[in-house]
C-alpha cells in the first residue's frame, strides 16, 4: 500500500492542475462566504439568520473544484491511457483506488480546512458584531459546523472519485456529480407534495450533508446535522463501492 500511496502522491503533486483546483476551492469558498455575510441585513438584535451557516455558504461553490479534482484523479488517467501503466505497476486495482482515495482525502482536508477557516475569519471581519458566541470556534455548534464542512468537502471528493471510476469519462462523470449535487435540490424544491419534498431533502447529498452547518432551529431541519452528513457519507461509500467493483471486473 505504501508504494501505491507514494505513486499517487507523486502523480498528484507533479501536475499543476490539482494545486490550482485546491486554490480555486479556497478562493471560491471564501469569496462567496464573504459576499453572503456582507449583504445580510444585521440589526442590533442579530442578523435574523444562522450566522455560522451564512459564513460557510461558499461551500456551495467551493465543492465544484473539489469534484473536478476528484474526477480528474481517475478519469484523467483513463483519458490519457496512464491507467494502464498504473495498473501494470500496481495490479491490485482496489489498492489503486484506495490509495487515490487516501491521497484525495488528505489534500481535500488541507484545502477544505483552509477554505473553512478563511470563511469563518472573513465572517468575523465582515459581520458588524458577531456577538459573544457566534463564529467562535470555541462554541460547540460552530466548531461542529466548521469541522463538518471540511468533512463534507472530503465526502464530496470521495463521491466524485467513485463516480469518476464508475463512469470513466471525465465530462460525463462531472455532469452526473454536479447534477446530483445541484439539480437534485432544485427538483425536490418544485415537488408540490410537502411530505415528498421533505423526504427528498433528506436524501439529496448536498441538502442533507449541509445540514451539518446549521446551528439554529435544529428542530425544523428535515434531518439532524450528523445524520445528514451520514447520508452524504452513504452516497460516497456507495459510489466508491460501485467504482471499485467496476474497476475490478472491467478491462481498463
Amino acid at each position: 500500500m505504501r508504494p501505491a500511496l507514494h505513486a499517487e502522491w507523486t502523480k498528484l503533486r507533479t501536475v499543476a492542475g490539482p494545486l490550482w483546483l485546491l486554490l480555486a476551492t479556497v478562493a471560491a469558498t471564501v469569496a462567496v462566504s464573504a459576499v453572503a455575510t456582507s449583504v445580510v441585513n444585521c440589526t442590533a438584535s442579530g442578523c435574523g439568520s444562522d450566522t455560522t451557516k451564512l459564513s460557510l455558504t461558499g461551500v456551495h461553490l467551493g465543492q465544484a473544484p473539489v469534484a473536478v479534482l476528484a474526477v480528474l484523479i481517475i478519469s484523467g488517467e483513463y483519458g490519457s491511457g496512464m491507467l494502464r501503466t498504473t495498473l501494470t505497476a500496481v495490479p491490485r486495482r482496489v489498492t489503486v483506488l484506495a490509495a487515490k482515495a487516501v491521497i484525495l482525502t488528505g489534500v481535500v482536508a488541507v484545502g477544505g480546512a483552509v477554505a473553512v477557516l478563511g470563511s469563518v475569519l472573513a465572517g468575523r471581519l465582515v459581520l458588524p458584531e458577531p456577538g459573544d458566541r457566534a463564529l467562535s470556534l470555541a462554541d460547540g455548534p460552530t466548531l461542529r459546523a466548521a469541522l463538518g464542512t471540511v468533512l463534507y468537502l472530503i465526502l464530496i471528493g470521495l463521491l466524485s472519485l467513485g463516480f469518476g471510476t464508475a463512469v470513466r469519462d471525465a465530462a460525463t462523470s462531472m455532469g452526473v456529480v454536479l447534477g446530483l449535487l445541484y439539480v437534485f435540490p432544485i427538483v425536490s424544491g418544485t415537488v408540490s407534495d410537502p411530505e415528498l419534498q421533505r423526504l427528498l431533502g433528506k436524501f439529496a447529498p448536498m441538502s442533507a450533508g449541509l445540514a451539518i452547518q446549521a446551528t439554529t432551529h435544529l428542530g425544523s431541519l428535515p434531518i439532524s446535522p450528523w445524520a445528514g452528513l451520514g447520508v452524504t457519507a452513504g452516497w460516497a461509500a456507495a459510489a466508491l463501492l460501485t467504482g471499485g467493483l467496476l474497476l475490478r471486473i472491467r478491462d481498463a
Partner: protein
Amino acid sequence: MTSTSTPYRSARRAGRDGFAQVLHAEWTKFRTVRSRLIGTGAVPLMLVLFALLAGAGGNQQGSPPVPVGPHGGPVTDSFYFVHRPLGGNGSIIVSVSALRSSIAQGPGDLRSGTVPWAKAGLVIKKGTRQGSPYAAIMATGSHGVRMQDGYVNDTAGPPGRVSAESPRWLRLDRSGDTVTGYASADGTKWTRVGTAQVSGLGPTAQVGLFVASPSVAGGGGTAGSVSTATFEDLRTRAGWADGDWTGGQVGAGSPSFAGYPRNASGSFAGSGDRFTVTGAGDIAPAVRDSLPTGGHLRDLLAGTFAALIAVIVVGALFITEEYRSKMIRLTLSASPRRGRVLVAKAIVLWAVTFVAGAAGAILAAPLGERLARDNGVYIFPVSYSTELRVALGTAALLATASVLALSVGALFRRSAGAVAMVTVTVVLPYVLIALPFLPAGVAKGVATATPGAVFAVQQTLVPYHQVASNYTPYYGYYPLAPWAGFAVLACYAVAALAAAAVLLDRRDA
C-alpha cells in the same frame, strides 16, 4: 528529341471547401457518435419525465377552489364585509377616521404596526361569492386613497394617512354599470378619484363597508396581519335607503387567504352611522405568496435543469473529445480556417439542441399542466403565446448553454473543467437565489448579471404594485424581461465563442 512530361493531375475535380461542407462535416461528426445522440435524446426525455413527476406529485383533490376574477386570473377575495342589498342606482358615503393594523410576530404575538396595503372603505359588489365583479374606494395603510375594480385595476387618489384629526370621506356612486369613486377631506368638497365600468353587477348589488389586511412581506417570508377601522357618518343617497347592515367574512376558507393571525378574528360593532370593523385578507390579484398551493409553468419544467447538465456535457465533449482523440488535427487539416470550424460546430450544436429542447418542452408543458389539473392542483393560467414563449425559450436556453459549454471546452481543452465551469455559472445562481436568507437585492443582482439570468424566459407570473409580496426570482418573479434574461446568457456564449475562436487561431492544436 526531347519530350516534355506533364506533371500528374488527378482526374477528380477538387472538392469544394465552402462553409456548407464544414457544416456538413460537423453534422456528420455529431450524428455518428452514439453518446452525443444519447445525450441529446435525454433532453426531451428529462423534460417530459420531470413534467410527469411534477404533475403527478401533488394531490390537492377536494381542496376548496381557487377564486378566479373577471380577468381570468386567480384572485384573493377575502375580507370583512358589512353590507346590505341595494337595488338600482344610488350613492353611499362614509368617513374613515382610523385605520390601525397589527402584525403577527410569532404564534399568538400580535404587535401594532403599519400594513401598507391595509384597506378600509366602501365596496359595491355583485354578491358575496368570491371573484364576483366589484368596485371599491378605500383608505389604505400608507398609499393614500385608492379606487380599485376588477381585482387588477388601481387608481391613486389623495395621499396621506387617515387619523381622527384628518379623517377621509369616501363616496361611491352607481349609475347602471358605471361606478364612480370620490374622496374628500371635509365631506363637502369632493374630488373624483376614478370611474370604473363594472359589468355584471346585476340589478341588486351588495353595498357596504369593508376592511382587508393582507399579509406583510419581508425577509423572504410573510406575516399575517389584522386591521381595525373606524367608520363614521355612514349614509346613503339618491335611491338607496338606509337599513340594517349585516357583517361577515367573505372567502374565509379560500386557498388564497392565509386566515386571521392567532387570537384575532373579524368582527363589526356599532349602529346607525358609526361602525368599527375588524378584518383581514385582501381584494386583489393572487400572487405566488398569497396562493402557496398553486403551481406555475416553471415548476413543471424542472426537467430543464437535468437536461441542462446533459447538453453541457454534450457541448463540452463536442470539442474536447477531438482534442483527446487528436481528431482536431484532421479537422483543422481539412478546414484550415479554424474560426469557421468552431462556428460550424456551434451552429450544428445549437440547432440540434434547440430542436430536442423544443420537442421536449412543447410536449412536457401541456402534459404536466393536464396532470396537475387532474390532481386538483391550481396552475397559474398562461396564454398560448406565453406558453409557446416558455417552451421555445427553454429550448433556446438549452441550446445556448450547450454552445457556451462548447466554447468553454475549446478554451480549456479539458472536458471536466469545462463542464464544471458552465454548470456552476448557469445552475449555481439558481441554487443561490433559492437560499432563504439571501436578501432580495442580492438575489435580483444574481438573476441579472450571471448566466443564470436566462431562467427569466420561463417566467409566467406578473407582479402587481398594489400587492406587497416577495417578488424574488425564487418565487418566479425575475428582474429582467424574458428575452432580456435570455440575452444575458447569449452575450456570455457569444463572448466565450469569440474568445475560443481567437485562442483556437493562436494556439497549436
